[in-house]
């Protein structure tokens, strides 16, 4: 099956073309079938490919993309454990979300409905290209492709200008990161003469030969990291993600929670060897990750828009993943990517279902007591919350625990901070849960909320199962030695890095203690949160002090606006009005004016008086004689 793996991205592309071109003629059901069907096909293909995948990568080359001088960039796809795993996540979650969307977007007019699914398919295509690309350029194609699709989908309701601005912001912030990736690619071309991952001459193989902290390597990895921060919404480029919630909720679930935002993690995992060798960069990665995790978590504590909460929690979780990458626990990162894909998608879809039920009301202060009204949603959401909070037995517990252990292995400080972030996660998630489902209904009674249709609840249930069970793919050695299936599966990908990083084995005793402590704390926090917010009622008291700062997201947007956006626009104005208009153009026109002025003056020499004429002639004659006789040549 693997040789035909190019069909995996091709199917969604087909769906995109069909839905896009015939968007005016297709009926909604047809659109939905095409949209979901293609992705389902891709899912099936991926499963088949997944079955066959072995340790070493298989390359499927389609054609020569760019060939200049001795640089050759083939258009080729790579199938190996990492990519195949991502294939499953993307197509799986993607399929569920397509199905969900058929219900969620049902009020849209047919043309827009088709447009929506076209974009969604295009996104799946780009994402698949991203993870399947066998070299950095193909990856970059997908990389920018997903950026474009997120732009299109955030601004899906294009009548609303603020949505468009959010979309623009997302695209531009991604572009900043993309520039980093592009420069990194150039640097690789200069350093290695190729951009392919695999093979003896591949980038990774060559990089493995270099010394630790080789400057070129550090440079390349830092540039890649810039790209990753853009795509995965890390400090400093994270501010676009919360705004991206302007898009339809399924989009937030798919793009801004499950898949696209994990592209950065994918890339770093893909080029893990370089990062492992460039320890400076790894340090930076860890710090950025941790800082983001904490910052985002603090902000999430005080958000009232349900999607905003989830958005910041996403940022925070991504921070965890970066932390994992930074401390060299790549498996942990990928593991968390997977589990996070499950429970965060679940949470978003649940939130979507709530919003759908609440007639597009997103303010949690207007929710409450939905437990009875939307039982399925409530139950699945609860599982999601438990999973993300890291209650033992749920998937989040395993992955987060692995990350925390990795952090501890590096240094207890990292562990402590990370744990703090995890606790905050638990708090705001159950704040959300409590405000939404417990207490009594605070919205307007006129149209009471209702449970969503099956097309929406079905994906919720499936995801709930995954969110619960997903964790058992990576049972830590603590419980059962060698039960960590994921680690073995991904082993070939990270082999070189593992060889370099000496494994700090932590004694099981310490591990038990840490796990116990963290679990205890988390459970405590959860009860605190529930108690605090189940009786929540909107006492119009404005936030103040730290709470106000948090509610306003630490004023980061305002800061960026002041130090980046405004100056650039200022310079633009300066150039446009001063240098261009009053400078260059005036100069150019000045030449013409000067000629006219001279002309006016020269006319006066022609005084009309013969006497003057003759006089000037005589003077000229004298001058010439002087020239000839007294000028030594």
């Amino acid at each position: 099956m693997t040789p035909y793996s190019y069909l995996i991205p091709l199917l969604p592309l087909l769906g995109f073309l069909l839905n896009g071109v015939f968007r005016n003629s297709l009926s909604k059901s047809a659109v939905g079938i095409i949209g979901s069907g293609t992705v389902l096909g891709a899912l099936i293909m991926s499963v088949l490919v997944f079955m066959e995948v072995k340790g070493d990568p298989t390359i499927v080359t389609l054609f020569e993309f760019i060939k200049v001088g001795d640089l050759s960039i083939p258009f080729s796809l790579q199938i190996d454990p990492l990519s195949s795993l991502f294939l499953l996540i993307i197509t799986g979650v993607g399929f569920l979300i397509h199905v969900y969307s058929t219900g969620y977007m049902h009020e849209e007019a047919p043309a827009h409905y088709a447009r929506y699914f076209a974009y969604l398919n295009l996104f799946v295509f780009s994402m698949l290209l991203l993870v399947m690309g066998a070299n950095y350029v193909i990856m970059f194609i997908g990389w920018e492709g997903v950026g474009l699709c997120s732009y299109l989908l955030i601004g899906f309701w294009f009548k609303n200008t603020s949505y468009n601005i959010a979309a623009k912001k997302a695209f531009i912030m991604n572009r900043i990161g993309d520039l980093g990736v592009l420069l990194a690619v150039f640097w690789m071309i200069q350093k290695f003469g190729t951009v392919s991952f695999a093979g003896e001459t591949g980038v990774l193989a060559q990089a493995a030969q270099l010394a630790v902290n080789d400057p070129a390597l550090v440079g390349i990895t830092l540039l890649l990291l810039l790209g990753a921060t853009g795509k995965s919404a890390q400090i400093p480029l994270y501010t676009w993600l919360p705004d991206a919630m302007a898009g339809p909720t399924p989009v937030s679930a798919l793009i801004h929670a499950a898949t696209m935002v994990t592209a950065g993690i994918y890339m770093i995992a893909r080029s893990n060897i370089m990062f492992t060798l460039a320890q400076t960069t790894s340090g930076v990665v860890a710090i950025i990750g941790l800082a983001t995790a904490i910052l985002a978590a603090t902000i999430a504590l005080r958000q009232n828009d349900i999607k905003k909460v989830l958005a910041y929690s996403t940022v925070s979780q991504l921070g965890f993943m970066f932390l994992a990458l930074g401390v060299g626990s790549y498996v942990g990162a990928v593991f968390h990517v997977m589990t996070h894909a499950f429970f965060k998608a679940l949470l978003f879809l649940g939130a979507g279902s709530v919003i759908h039920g609440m007639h597009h009301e997103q303010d949690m202060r207007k929710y409450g007591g939905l437990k009875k009204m939307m039982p399925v949603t409530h139950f699945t959401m609860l599982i999601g919350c438990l999973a993300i909070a890291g209650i033992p037995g749920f998937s989040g517990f395993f992955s987060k625990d692995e990350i925390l252990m990795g952090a501890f292995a590096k240094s207890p400080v990292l562990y402590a901070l990370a744990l703090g972030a995890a606790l905050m996660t638990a708090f705001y998630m159950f704040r959300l849960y409590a405000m939404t489902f417990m207490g009594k209904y605070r919205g307007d009674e006129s149209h009471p909320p209702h449970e969503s249709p099956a097309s929406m609840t079905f994906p919720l249930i499936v995801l709930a199962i995954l969110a619960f069970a997903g964790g058992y793919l990576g049972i830590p050695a603590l419980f059962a030695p060698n039960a960590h299936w994921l680690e073995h599966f991904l082993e070939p990908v990270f082999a070189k890095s593992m060889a370099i990083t000496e494994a700090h084995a932590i004694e099981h005793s310490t591990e038990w203690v840490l796990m116990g402590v963290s679990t205890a704390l988390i459970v405590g926090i959860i009860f605190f949160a529930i108690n605090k917010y189940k009786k929540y009622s909107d006492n119009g008291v404005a936030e103040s002090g730290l709470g106000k700062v948090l509610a306003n997201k630490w004023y980061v947007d305002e800061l960026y606006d002041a130090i980046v956006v405004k100056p650039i626009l200022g310079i633009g104005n300066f150039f446009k009005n001063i240098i261009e208009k009053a400078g260059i153009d005036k100069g150019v026109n000045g030449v013409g004016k000067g000629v006219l002025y001279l002309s006016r003056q020269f006319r006066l020499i022609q005084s009309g008086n013969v006497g003057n004429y003759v006089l000037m002639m005589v003077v000229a004659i004298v001058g010439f004689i002087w020239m000839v006789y007294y000028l030594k040549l």
Partner: protein
Amino acid sequence: MTTQQIIFWFLSVVAVFCAIMVITRKNPVFSVLYLIITFFAISGHYILLNAQFLAIVNVIVYAGAIMVLFLFVLMLMNLNKESEPQKNKYMLWSGAIAGGMLMLVLIDAVRPEQKVQIYEGLSGGNVGLVKNLGTRLFTDYLVPFEISSILFLSAMIGAVVIGKRD
């Protein structure tokens, strides 16, 4: 101081003096008369340089014909009073200075390194005699001689076109 030198100096002084008078007299008629004297002096020089034929022609054509023509025109316009208003000082001086400059520069330009004697004694030969010039004129210089007729024709037409009242 040989006789020729005496004559030379005499004629030169007369010529230059009268030339200056020509350009300084207010009354045009005086200017004409002084100009005639200048021409006579120059004719004297011609004789001194044994160009006898030219000397005669000079007297007849210039002093005789041309100057009389001038005189006629002046009388015709009766400009014989001191009518001409003076040019403004600035123009006057700048003109005088410029002309003077030209004069000096020319004189300086043509001052040869060593002296070139042009005659010792009046042994002039027959260069300037009508016989010699005539033969040259009607053999070698026949073409220009004929062509100058075109000049006279155009002058004649000019007189007709411009002078004729209509």
